[in-house]
């Protein structure tokens, strides 16, 4: 296990560790720009961001990051093919109108893509649904079904299937539980979060 980079969320830290220095990066759903700032400062990357929430965009721009207020469902279309070495979609896939189309766009604009998401097949989610009989509210998925932005819940195995269907190669994958990286075996049960690196 590698120690986390700075104070980044574990999935972002994993991505930050594996982006080659000096790369051109597009972070889709970049939030407050924590990953972008890390990539620019520590790896000398040329990082660009896209974020839907105007207040977060303002925070990014006021810290000197290049972030566009935009909707991943609509605004990726304007980027040329392979404009970036990496396209990153962290914790956003499950909020997309059409995750499959977003994945296509990621693999179009980036030579490689990083995708991270909460794993709906984690044992906590399964037991909450199995025994509680209600949509799970867990540490990884803390918001009730009626107000969550997660409209397309996905599991590790679902994502592997989608990648296969899209003709994407899974280059690497990382899994996390309790804020720590865990091994791949049994990840569909054990992982709260997953990060995949893809190419096509």
């Amino acid at each position, binding site marked *: 296990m590698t120690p986390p980079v700075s104070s980044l969320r574990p999935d972002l830290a994993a991505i930050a560790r594996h982006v080659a220095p000096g790369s051109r990066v597009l972070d889709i759903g970049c939030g407050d720009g924590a990953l972008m700032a890390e990539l620019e400062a520590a790896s000398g990357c*040329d990082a*660009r961001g896209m974020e839907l929430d*105007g*207040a977060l*965009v*303002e925070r*990014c*721009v*006021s*810290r*000197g*990051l*290049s*972030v*566009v*207020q*935009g909707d991943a469902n609509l*605004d990726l279309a*304007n*980027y*040329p093919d392979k*404009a970036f070495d990496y396209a990153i979609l962290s914790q956003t896939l499950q909020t997309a109108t059409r995750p499959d189309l977003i994945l296509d766009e990621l693999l179009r604009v980036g030579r490689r893509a990083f995708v991270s998401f909460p794993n709906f097949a984690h044992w906590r989610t399964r037991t909450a649904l199995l025994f509680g009989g209600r949509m799970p509210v867990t540490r990884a998925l803390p918001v009730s079904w009626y107000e969550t932005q997660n409209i397309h819940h996905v599991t590790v195995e679902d994502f592997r299937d989608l990648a296969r269907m899209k003709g994407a190669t899974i280059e690497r994958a990382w899994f996390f539980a309790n804020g720590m990286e865990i091994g791949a075996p049994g990840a569909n049960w054990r992982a709260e979060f997953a990060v995949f690196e893809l190419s096509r």
Partner: protein
Amino acid sequence: MNVAPLSNVYHIPNPLPLDSGQVLEAAQIAYETYGELAPDKGNAVLVCHALTGDQYLASPHPITGKPGWWERMVGPGKPIDTNRHFVICANVIGSCMGSSGPASLAPDGAPYAMRFPVITIRDMVRGLVALLDGLGIDRLHAVVGGSMGGMQALSLAANWPERAARVLVIASTARHSAQNIAFHEVGRQAIMADPAWAEGDYYAADAKPDNGLAVARMAAHITYLSEAGLTEKFGRRLQDREAKGFGFDAEFQVESYLRYQGSGFTRRFDANSYLYITRAMDYFDIAEEHGGKLATAFAGTQARFCLVSFDTDWLYPTAESRHIVHALNAAGAKVSFVELSAPHGHDSFLLEHDQLDRVVKGFVE
């Protein structure tokens, strides 16, 4: 009108070529500066003014005595910090605050009036670039502008891409829409319908086309505000009266306000300049200048861009900024964009707005 300019004046040494094919001989640019130019001349920020703006960015206006038009944004410790940056603001060609325009004297000693060549936004920027040459500034730390100022910033970035490292465009557009042109045409027709306009030849006359210019300003002023803003400020309240008068005085507060805006404007602005500058804005279409494709205008640019729009701005709505952002993305440019929420429509960029301050500071720093 007709003020002895208090500003610095730069005499452009060479004839200025114009998009119309004409040239402007002996053109001059009036400008103000704030802060100190660094020895390496790397800290210059050019702020471009809007249609009826001028070079009095952060210092009192010599005619109205009012504070500079962006004093809340530019100054020591302000978002555009004059302790760090050398800030330049120049009156555009075609205007009337000391730079060459229709009120200036032609070589024959009489005012140009309508003999002044029709200019474009790019021609204004040619004048600004000439000024930068005169000041020995090869590359601006940033060019900044709102509304028509944003058009100049975009034009500089598209046509002189090596001249600015950062380009900040607020509440602006890459082209004038049919609606934009339509409103400007109302203004121009108001001026030209005023008998005192006299085909533009009024400089020696007692009467100026103030009535027409005031109406032009009133119509334009509405486009700078939002319906919600007008309702909040005036509603249907009456001005200095208890009941409707069944006449045509300025009975409503909003009428009185617009008349005040219109007449105040005529004290500081030349009607012919209004014709020329609105025409320049109407001609503005950066894509058209670059083979019809906006992304082509910015191909290969190394500058960083930031675009800001306001959700209640219906003059240059967010879609116009987004259109520019998409072109910049297609060109691979480094771009930021945010739509800010503000109740006051297009004019929001001139008003108190903490988020705007933070974005400007973060981007220009």
